[in-house]
């Protein structure tokens, strides 16, 4: 929470306020951030802080929505009813996460419609990981274990993010994500201990998802354009490389318990640093996927646009019905 004086401006922006007041507001904001207080929607905040949060939260929401696709791809083919129920519940949770996150973004003065429009027109991005295809059932497990695992490593620190609505959304999201991650691990374990064909399917999936999962932490620290500012604002708490190393250290023993290998010949424990060393990430591939040239970029966005366009008449019907209903109620009240 920032100071009462700043809060009284009720969303006033730097450009609206006299110059000396802006300096006061900035000082109050900086002090609140320094004291680890939460910034709330009605507090004054720098325009760039607001814009960064809108971008990050929107991208996060978009990732939940696009991220439904690779997993929904297997709902109709899940090999047991128990697994089918788990997968349906997970995809449903993801839609719910998207809703929390769009709501959090809306507290910053944007709207879900506006953000979806930016997603559909390619002006806002989603996580590059969802541009990879789910080719076998084991991919559902690899996504749970590795992709959700990487997401949690990224998101747990966001529960302490300086912006209150985002931090609170993350608390709820992380609880469900960690459940998904355990389910993914358990799915892979069942495959790994199953028939030779199932074991091979699990290994193949881990081989394909390992490197893209490491890319989820973003570019290396020396190339990350937003990092320093985000860390100063306490939106971000740890650097990309720091979180990536933490993730590798978590995964190595888990892969051993799974009886699966990680596809990196350079991966080994470094006694001196007390961490794992690992091989070089293919940043060319990362940049290609980000630019739209990944295996599924085109399909993912096309499918999302199509769902939106084909649903337009339904949304229009709901709005028309609500308007009629409102009018008739008003009429009844008058009569």
């Amino acid at each position, binding site marked *: 929470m920032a100071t009462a004086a700043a809060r009284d401006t009720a969303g006033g922006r730097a450009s609206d306020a006299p110059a000396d007041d802006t300096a006061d507001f900035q000082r109050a904001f900086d002090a609140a951030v320094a004291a680890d207080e939460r910034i709330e929607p009605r507090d004054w905040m720098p325009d760039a802080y607001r814009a960064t949060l809108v971008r990050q939260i929107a991208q996060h929401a978009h990732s939940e*929505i696009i991220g*439904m*696709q690779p997993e*929904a791809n297997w*709902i*109709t*083919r*899940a*090999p*047991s*009813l*128990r*697994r*089918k*129920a788990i997968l*349906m*519940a997970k*995809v*449903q949770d993801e*839609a*719910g996460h*998207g*809703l929390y996150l*769009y709501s959090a973004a809306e507290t910053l003065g944007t709207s879900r419609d506006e953000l979806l429009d930016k997603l559909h027109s390619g002006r806002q991005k989603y996580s590059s990981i969802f541009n990879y295809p789910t080719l076998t*059932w084991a991919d559902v497990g690899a996504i749970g274990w590795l992709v959700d695992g990487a997401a949690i490593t990224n998101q747990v620190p966001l529960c302490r993010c300086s912006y209150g609505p985002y931090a609170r959304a993350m608390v709820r999201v992380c609880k469900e994500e960690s459940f998904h991650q355990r389910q993914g691990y358990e*799915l892979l374990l*069942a*495959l790994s201990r*199953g*028939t030779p*064909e*199932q074991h091979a399917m699990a290994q193949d999936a881990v081989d394909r998802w390992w490197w893209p999962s490491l890319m989820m932490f973003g570019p290396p620290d020396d190339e990350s354009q937003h990092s320093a500012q985000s860390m100063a604002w306490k939106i971000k708490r740890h650097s990309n490389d720091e979180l990536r190393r933490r993730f590798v250290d978590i995964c190595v023993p888990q892969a051993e318990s799974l009886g699966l290998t990680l596809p990196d010949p350079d991966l080994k424990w470094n006694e001196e640093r007390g961490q794992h060393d690992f091989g070089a990430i293919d940043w060319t591939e990362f940049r290609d996927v980000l630019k739209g040239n990944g295996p599924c970029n085109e399909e993912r966005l096309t*499918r999302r646009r*199509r*769902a*939106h366009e*084909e*649903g*337009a*008449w*339904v*949304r*229009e*019907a*709901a709005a*028309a*019905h*609500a308007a*009629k209903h409102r009018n008739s109620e008003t009429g009844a009240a008058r009569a």
Partner: protein
Amino acid sequence: MTTTPAKDTAHTAAALALGDDALVLSHRLGEWAGHAPVLEEELALANIALDLLGQARVLLSAAGDEDELAYLREERAFRNLQLVEQPNGDFAHTIARQLYFSAYQHLLYGELAAGDGPFAPLAGKAVKETAYHRDHAEQWTLRLGDGTDESHARMQRAVDALWRYTGEMFQPVEGVDVDPSGLETAWLERVSEVLRRATVTVPDGPRTGAWTAGAGRQGLHTESFGRMLAEMQHLHRSHPGATW
């Protein structure tokens, strides 16, 4: 490979019929994931699909092994209504299918829950879920029917197209101790009232006595159903004996 239920009793037959309804409709709703017209409907449709899948698992487990029954029976051994296997079509078709089926299921489970038969415990839980499903379908029927000209036309088309699959719900099912004609009267009253409020004309085509009546319950299905099963079963069948 074809799997048949272990015990061929009236109870097993009934559990299969009701379980297959829930299983097949759940699968159809699962096909909507990632395609819904608005995010809230991604949640709602998945939610209903999950409830139905939960019902299916209890019912199929009462008849045998749930996975063997779901994944290793062929088309002619499935006992679901033809209504629930109908393709999703547009959102209005999905809603009309939900309206017809959830109104039926709510009435059926209400009666089963009130009785002391073997399905009473399941029905007691499921009747609460089906009340929610019915409300969801009815609200959307009203919005689409009494929305825009386009949505009205689509809702009417959907209601008309699926009407001929509704008679089958009121054929007697072996092992289900409910009076079908009483269900049918209550169903017609409820559905007609919703359609009327939605400004949709109640179809006057055949419902009972049509060629479809009772066919699904006897293992005679429509053409799209085999393809649905091919997709649903292929992975399980590709790994005989594996556990997942």
